[in-house]
Structures are given as C-alpha cells and as structure tokens.
C-alpha cells in the first residue's frame, strides 16, 4: 500500500524534475513574475505629464506654477499660450492633466477674493486622474494657506496669532510611507501560488487521462486515494517551495517587512494549498484534454483573483458579490499574508481566516475526490 504510494511519488518527482525545461517552468517563472509584478503592480503616481496655460502672467501665478513643477508628482512638459492647445494635447495623450490659470488670478488674490485654478484631467484612466486631482488639491490648498499667512504677516501681523487652524498629522500604521508595493507584494505571492498550483495539478492529472495512463493505472491494484495522493502531494511540496522562493524575493529584493512569524505563514500556506489542490483536481475531473483544463482554469483564476481583494477593495463591491467573495480561498490567504507581513499578527487574530480556509479546503478536496471517483467509471 505505502509501496504503491511511494512509487507514485517517485514517478511524479522524476517526471517533474528530470527535464531541464519542466524544472525551469516550476521555479523560474514564479520568481520572474514576482519581479515583474513587484515593480509593475503599483498605484502610486509620479511624473504625471502636465501642461500649463498661464493666462495671468503674474508673480502669483508663476509662484503657483513653480509649486507644480517642483513637485515629484507632476512633470510640467508644456507651457501653453492658447486654450485650444489643451484639447489637442489631451487627445494625443501627451498630457494627462492641464492646468489653466485665469486672467485676473493675482488681482483677485490681492483683493482678498477667490481666485480660480482650473484642472482638466484625462479621465480614461480614472485611477490616475483621481489621484492626480488629489495632489492638485493639496498643492492649491497649501499655496492658498501660505498666501493668506504671508498677506496677514505683511498687513496685520498682530492678528496672525488669532487665526485658528487645524493641523493634520497623518500616522499610517504598518506602512508609514503608504508604499503600494508593500500592499501588492504579499498579494502577488498569494495569486501566483493560486495560478501555479491549480494549473499544475489540473494539468498533471488530465495528462494521465490524455495519454491513457490513467486507465492503465486503474487496472492495477492501486486505490484511487493512493493515486490522488500520489498526484497531489508533489504539487503540494512544489507549491510550498515556490511560496518560499517568491516570499524570499518579496522580503529581500523588494524589502517588504516581514513582521510576523514563519509558523503562522506556513500554516496559512498549507491550508491555502489544500484548497488549491482541491480546485486543481476538480478542474481535472471536468476536463478530458489539457486545452479544456487550461480554459477551465482560466475561468476560475480570473474571478478568484478579482474577488480576493488583490487589487480592488471588497468593501466597494455590491453586497451579493461580497457574499460570493467568502467562497474565494485567496481572499483569506491575502489577509493572512498581509497580516503576517505588515502587521505581524498571529494565530489569535488570523484564526477566522485559517478556519475558513480549512473548511473550504476540506469541502473542495472531498468534492474533487468524490467527482474523481465518478469520472473513473
């Protein structure tokens, strides 16, 4: 009995590790993708292409423009002379934002009236536009505040002390600089593991069906559970090694702080891998060729990543979709990953996620084993 299982495992490892190319596929792409995602998955905005139309030509307007050109968020590429140029620049994508300072800007300020600054944004990338307009507001406000203070200092210094103001001190915990990489890298570890383990498992089983070895094995005295264990255990171990590799890259290359305990991460990973093996097996029971398995896996992977909170916050999804996300194992694993990495929390806090993954894992595995038995008949 154990001899049969052992032989299954030996065979799987020979198959997975003998060929140089297969070996490379198991461990190369995860690291490369981690590097790619680590650099690319980023919501931060720097050097937004900016055009400025200053129709006031005053000292004040130049002071405002200089605040934009000295900001790391904006890259002032063009100084315009005519309003019509704006449309052209935005259409061509040469500018994402155009700032227009109306004539009389300085005059209004000097009179103590409201002066207007218009920002025209390319909304095709709503995220960039939203964040850029936030930075515009910040710069405009600080300009206004400084201008008021200066003016008061010059005209009525005795009142400066009487003007009340609220100063905001932001102290973001866990990610002091609000680096989006710190948010994304743990997410990439989770989603890469999901893609890797489900497809590898599904492909490995479907391949046996495709080349006829599955039927051949079933006329030997091997029990279906021995076959399933023999097929899944190697990918479980390969999955663990891959998580280790990409987590190492995330921690040491991208310098994402690892504040929690390895044991908590390991426990979460084991539970998550159980779910993924279940999904992989389930895909293999509904596919008779590797192409079918590929398409089926794709239909699982896309929503699983989207609903996990990898990039889009779950709290903004419609209620019915939010309920659906509770079925997504990645949702829980991401909480565990981010919790362990950034917050350094332990079992006490992550228990609900661990439990959810354990339940999902058991359900998925039982379902797939049951379906696998049926598919053999």
């Amino acid at each position, binding site marked *: 009995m154990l001899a049969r299982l052992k032989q299954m495992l030996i065979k799987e490892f*020979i198959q997975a590790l003998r*060929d140089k190319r297969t070996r490379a596929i198991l461990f190369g792409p995860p690291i490369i993708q981690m590097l790619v995602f680590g650099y690319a998955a980023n919501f931060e905005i720097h050097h937004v292409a900016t055009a400025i139309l200053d129709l006031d030509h005053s000292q004040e307007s130049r002071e405002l423009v200089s605040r934009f050109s000295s900001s790391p968020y904006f890259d002032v590429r063009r100084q315009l002379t005519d309003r019509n140029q704006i449309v052209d620049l935005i259409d061509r994508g040469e500018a994402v934002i155009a700032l227009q300072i109306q004539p009389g800007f300085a005059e209004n300020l000097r009179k103590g009236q409201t002066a207007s600054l218009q920002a025209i944004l390319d909304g095709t990338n709503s995220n960039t536009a939203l964040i850029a307009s936030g930075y515009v507001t910040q710069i405009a406000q600080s300009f206004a505040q400084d201008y008021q203070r200066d003016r008061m200092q010059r005209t009525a210094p005795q009142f400066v002390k009487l003007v009340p103001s609220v100063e905001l001190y932001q102290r973001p915990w866990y990610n002091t600089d609000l680096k989006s990489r710190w948010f994304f890298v743990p997410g990439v570890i989770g989603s890469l593991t999901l893609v890797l383990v489900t497809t590898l498992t599904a492909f490995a089983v479907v391949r046996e069906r495709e080349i006829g070895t599955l039927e051949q094995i079933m006329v*030997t005295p091997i029990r279906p559970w021995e076959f399933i264990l023999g097929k899944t255990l190697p990918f479980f171990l390969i999955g663990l090694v891959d998580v280790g590799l990409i987590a190492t890259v995330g921690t040491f290359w991208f310098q994402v702080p690892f504040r929690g305990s390895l044991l908590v991460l390991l426990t979460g990973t084991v539970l998550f891998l159980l779910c993924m093996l279940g999904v992989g097996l389930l895909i293999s029971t509904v596919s008779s060729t590797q192409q079918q398995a590929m398409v089926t896996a794709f239909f699982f992977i896309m929503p699983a990543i989207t609903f996990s909170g990898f990039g889009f916050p779950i709290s903004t999804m419609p209620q019915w979709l939010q309920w659906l996300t509770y079925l997504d194992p990645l949702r829980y694993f991401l909480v565990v990953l981010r919790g362990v990495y950034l917050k350094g929390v332990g079992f006490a806090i992550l228990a609900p996620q661990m439990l959810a993954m354990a339940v999902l894992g058991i359900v998925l595995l039982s379902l797939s084993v049951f379906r696998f038995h049926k598919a053999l008949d």
Partner: protein
Amino acid sequence: MTAAVQPALTIRGLTKSFPGIRAVDGVSCDVYPGEIFGLVGPDGAGKTTTLRMLAGVMPPDQGSATVAGSDVVHDPEAAKHDLSYMPQRFGLYEDLTVDENIRFYGDLFGVRANERRARSAQLLEAAGMSEFRKRLAGKLSGGMKQKLGLVCALIHHPKVILLDEPTTGVDPVSRRDFWRILYNLIAEGVAILTSTAYLDEAERCHRVALMHEGKLLFLDTPAKLKSGFAKGVLAILSSDARRMKEELKRVEGISSLVLTGDGVHVVIEDPVRRIPQIKAQLVSAQVPFSEMRQVVPTIEDLFVDAVTSGRSGGQG
C-alpha cells in the same frame, strides 16, 4: 482443450449498450489456460468494449465474467492481480525510461524487486529490447513502445491477459517478437484473449470467434471453421485485381469477394462447376487473369463472407 481443465476466463451473457447502440450483445465464451483466443471483427464490432468490461474499467449492463475464479463484475479489485489488460495504446510514461516504466507498473502490482528484475530481463530479451533499458519510452519506435507495453503488462505474472489489437501499426519484426512472447506465455499456462484486425494473426490463435455487431458469430478452431465451411473458394490471380473484383460483382450466385495480394478470392457454392461461367465473364470484360483454381478457405474468406452476407454462420 480438454474439458477437465477449468477455464481461466468465463464470460456469460455480457451485454453493454450505449445511447442508440447495443455495443455488446450477450457475449458468452470460455478461455482456457494455455490458450490464445482470438476475437476478430470489423471496427465498431464491440471488441474493445468487451475487453474493457473484462478488465473491470467499464461495468456491463448485464452478464457476468470471472477471471481465475474471481467475479470481475462485482469485485473488480479481487481479479486485478491475476489480470492484465493492454489497450490499443498502452499507457506508457514517455518521459520515463524503459526500466522506470517497468518498475512503476511492477511496484503498483507489488512485484518484489528481485523478481521484477529477473522477469523484466527475460521479457526484454524476448522482445529484443535489452539494450534499450535506459532509453526514454518516448524515444522508442511504435513497435518498441507496444512491446514495452506488453512487458509492463506481464511484469506481475498474470493468469489472464486481455490484449486489444496489440499489433496494430506494429512493424513485422516487432510483430514476430510479440507473438513469440505470447507463445512463451502459453507454455506457462496463461490464458490470452486478444482482439485483432489482422486475419492472418487469427490463424495463429487456438480458437477464434468472429464478433459482428456485438455478437459472436463463429467460435471454433481455425481448422474446424474452415472444414465446416459449406461454400467453396476460387482463387483467381490477376494483375488488375480491383477491376476484376468490380467485374465479378455482376456474376450471379457469388456469395462474397475478398481481395488478396495478387488477385481475388471468390466465395461461392459449388465452385468448380462455376469456373466456365466466371471465365466467360472476365474474358468478355477483357480483365486480365492468369490462374483460377479452388483453394482451402482462409479465416478471412469465412469472416468477410459472414459479415458481407450479413448472416449468422452457425455455432457460437
């Protein structure tokens, strides 16, 4: 085969239907130790379905079958150690070597290492593959792959072997090796049930049965089948056998026509009396022919006649 020997494989009323077709229809027969039983028939006759049911990978709708005394329908697990099933394409791992494939299947059957080594050395020798043990299975020729499949299928000393068209697409040299291995097994008292599309191979079996539309039509030794054949066979040699076959279709009373390598076999009642009439027809159609004589029917003549005239031939 003597009646005192217990059959190694018994099949009783085996039936299986798929939507719209009765693939296997009440098949019954016995295969004895030391016997090669040939199952012959056109594609779609139900040979593969029969073998799959016997192998325990497909449950029958009705009927029963025992392998070395174990009921394969109700307890497929019990028969597995005594049984070997080789489908048309044996499931080999192309990225494992010859030795690794043999070891894998040997271990799944719980064959001890020293026993496996001795057995595989002997089988590989008989297959003419001793020097390819370290080669990847995927790098073997088609015939070699099939022989390796046979070695893997025999590694656990089965008592009953089910072969599904094992030599289809196999080169003549490998086919000869294949049959040599089978004859060696017969000496060990193994029972072999094989399907084949090659009718010359059917002649090498101890007994053959024609399977047609899910039923067994003939069932006897090749010699008895031939001597019991009521019709006669005329062999006509020709340099244009195809055209001759077309012409002969016009002659009344011909039961069936079988193309051979160098001419046509005409299955017909009372053949000698019909020679002048057939000659006249060929001369008037200006079909070249050189020789025309009565010959002993081949299994192919019998079966083609049975299938084309669409009648049951009798015993079965």
